[in-house]
């Protein structure tokens, strides 16, 4: 994306975000909008490590949880402003991201093995959060409302939360844009595309993987603090459950891995679907939105693997070509060619 196009898209988005709460006064719609924006922000955070460097993680729920629990516990027990808790949580999450990253990358863990190790890391946090007294286990922690103010990161109305999460999302998108155009971004993509070639061109692969892990953990943790301060209730299932990590991954893939706007687009598409399903079906068929997520994911991976950001490029090739290429990918996945050859021989 050129700088000019980015500025145009960002300007239109900023204007829309500024006037949105003035036009939308329904509390429920505003609530859904906040959740959509938070999901978009988390997907952007995940995208730094998963999309740009190609290290798919299922452990980001741990960073989300660290952010939420750190700011909450510091607020509840020591009366510290959640803004201080936000920074503290982000630093702790960054350290954990670097620690796990170092253990994995130092010993060449990547691909599906990194996915599994990151999942294990997140599960360890989940188990600790469930079983340790000071997190109150699955009962969770309700954050008391101590008057709406910026200092306490608590507001009586929804629109300040909307503007806060919008600002976070804009910062995340801006950061991604500047990274993508810088030496850091070029090295991230080089590591993803070919570690050997990257090394031969002077890229310290481990250093750049760790930088991505640290930045991604830092950003994700901030999202956790926001969630805690907005919902005002946290428990392990809601913030360190596997679904938290999976959602970030799915939004990024559907929207476009390693792109500036892709992860946000993915969240803008999928989150309202989940909300609509829950509203339409009510208490019955809980989780049906996950079936729809799965179906969309399969369609995207087969027919437009570049995600929503790649639709324009895919359409240029023509719908016939999209289906032909998709069928080829599907055939490869099922190894149909080999099966047919075996039958013929």
């Amino acid at each position, binding site marked *: 994306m050129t700088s000019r196009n980015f500025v145009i898209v960002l300007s239109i988005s900023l204007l829309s975000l500024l006037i949105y709460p003035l036009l939308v006064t329904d509390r429920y719609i505003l609530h859904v909008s906040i959740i959509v924006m938070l999901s978009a922000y988390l997907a952007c955070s995940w995208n730094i490590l998963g999309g740009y460097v190609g290290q798919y993680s299922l452990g980001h729920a741990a960073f989300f949880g660290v952010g939420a629990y750190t700011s909450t516990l510091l607020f509840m027990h020591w009366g510290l402003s959640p803004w201080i808790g936000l920074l503290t949580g982000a630093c702790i999450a960054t350290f954990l991201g670097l620690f796990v990253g170092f253990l994995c990358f130092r010993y060449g863990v990547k691909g599906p093995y990194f996915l599994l190790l990151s999942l294990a890391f997140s599960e360890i946090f989940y188990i600790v959060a469930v079983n340790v007294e000071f997190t109150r286990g699955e009962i969770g922690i309700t954050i008391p409302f101590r008057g709406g103010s910026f200092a306490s990161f608590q507001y009586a109305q929804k629109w300040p939360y909307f503007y806060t999460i919008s600002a976070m999302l804009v910062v995340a998108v801006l950061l991604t844009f500047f990274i993508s*155009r*810088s*030496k850091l971004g*070029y*090295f991230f*993509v*080089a590591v993803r*595309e*070919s570690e*050997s*070639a*990257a*090394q*031969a*061109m*002077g*890229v*310290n*692969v481990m250093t750049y993987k760790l930088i991505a892990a640290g930045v991604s953990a830092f950003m994700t943790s901030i999202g956790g603090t926001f969630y805690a301060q907005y919902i005002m209730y946290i428990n392990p299932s809601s913030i360190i459950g596997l679904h938290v990590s999976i959602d970030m991954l799915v939004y990024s893939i559907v929207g476009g891995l*390693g792109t500036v706007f892709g992860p946000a687009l993915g969240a803008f598409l999928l989150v309202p679907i989940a909300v609509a399903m829950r509203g339409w079906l009510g208490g019955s068929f809980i989780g049906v939105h996950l079936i729809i997520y799965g179906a969309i994911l399969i369609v995207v991976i087969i027919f437009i693997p570049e995600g929503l950001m790649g639709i324009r490029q895919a359409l240029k090739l023509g719908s016939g070509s999209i289906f032909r290429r998709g069928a080829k990918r599907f055939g490869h996945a099922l190894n149909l060619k080999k099966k047919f050859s075996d039958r013929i021989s």
Partner: protein
Amino acid sequence: MAVNDVSFQIMEGEILGMIGPNGAGKTTVFNLISGFLKPDAGLVRFRDEVITGLRPDQISHKGLGRTFQIPQVFAKFSLLQNVMVGCFARTYVRSLAKRNAERILKAMGLFNKAEILAKKINLIDRKRLELAKAMSIEPQLILMDELMAGLTPTEIKEALVLVDQIRSSGVTIILIEHVMDVVMSVSDRVIVLHHGSKISEGSPEAVCKDKVVIDAYLGEEEPLCWR
């Protein structure tokens, strides 16, 4: 043992050819020099500095570049962006990296394809891109691993022009090749590996007539130089 007691040196500005039957250990030698493999014994010295045990990126910063037998392009990057990765190793400034990358692409005859994605180019252009990427780190020495493999005779002639250009710019070259015409025409000296050991070293003409080398190639595709 993939490589056993192989010792050689190369002079600045030279082109050293490395030949040998398949499985002789040629690419292994390149991997040992460029840091992708660590030797169990022995030293690699580059410009009076021991570089054994350094990481490939550290060796690259010292001025040693390489190409890969199967071109390792960054598929989702354009050709310009591919080369900019190496240019960024020397500068943080994007505009400077871009300018340097454009200059290198022009030299490699790829400037008109700068914005094309690397996954969409043909084999000869991939080979050119490999060279461009190796040149982007401003090397003093380049290891070229079977640059001519898979190319037509016309494409080989084009690639030889590039090799000559690179040599004229002052870069020392070690090249692994199976195409004997190439080795004979460009190399100042040739070393021959067989079963991980060095069996001959000398001028291309002398090596071609060496009985040990001829015996080693029996059963393999007969090199052109003694047809």
